[in-house]
């Protein structure tokens, strides 16, 4: 498995674990979270996830020193563009939902968490498409 594919797996799995904890935790609360609750919980979880991803990148780079230092080639760039382009549409849909629809129907904490969820889903779509493209091929 290529170095870039491994790092995409690492990021996707860490995201799934981190936000698989955060969003159910928020949804199952009996009282609505305050802004401080959201910032505190999200900050801890996102910070822990970032630390694990950085450590994982260091370990993977140590295992493949040549590949880690190499610049992405045209296929790597095409695959990255494909993931980012799909993620953009997901993020746009989320932005319309939280910025145009939800302010008229939902309380602020729910809007904030939905915005965070949209970002997380967009990023997950990005990494998923990157992995799919490395696995199944890319004819861009």
């Amino acid at each position, binding site marked *: 498995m*290529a170095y870039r594919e491994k790092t995409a797996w690492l990021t996707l799995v860490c995201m799934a674990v981190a936000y698989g904890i955060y969003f159910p935790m928020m949804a199952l609360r009996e009282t609505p979270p305050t802004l401080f609750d959201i910032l505190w919980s999200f900050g801890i979880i996102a910070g822990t996830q970032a630390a694990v991803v950085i450590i994982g990148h260091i370990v993977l780079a140590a295992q493949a020193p040549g*590949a880690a230092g*190499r610049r992405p*080639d*045209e*296929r*790597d760039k095409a695959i990255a563009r494909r993931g980012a382009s799909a993620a953009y549409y997901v993020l746009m849909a989320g932005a319309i939902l939280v910025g145009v629809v939800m302010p008229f129907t939902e309380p602020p904490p729910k809007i904030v968490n939905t915005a965070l969820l949209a970002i997380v889903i967009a990023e997950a779509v990005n990494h998923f498409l990157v992995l799919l493209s*490395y696995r*199944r*091929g*890319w*004819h861009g």
Partner: protein
Amino acid sequence: MARVVNQVRTLRFLAGEMTQAELGEKIGLTRQTIAAIEQGKYSPSLEAAFRIAQVFGKPLEEVFSWEA
């Protein structure tokens, strides 16, 4: 389905079993990308296709062709 096919694996063999990594090194692509090209999982850019043909000293149409 129509697709681009190539003779890169054969040409590497004829070039003294040149490895995918060696070919990639010559044209600025990774070994994984050369493998993807050989397996038909990635169609290279025109520039990369010309570079590959140049490495083997062949015209482009002898390396890549369109299979309808």
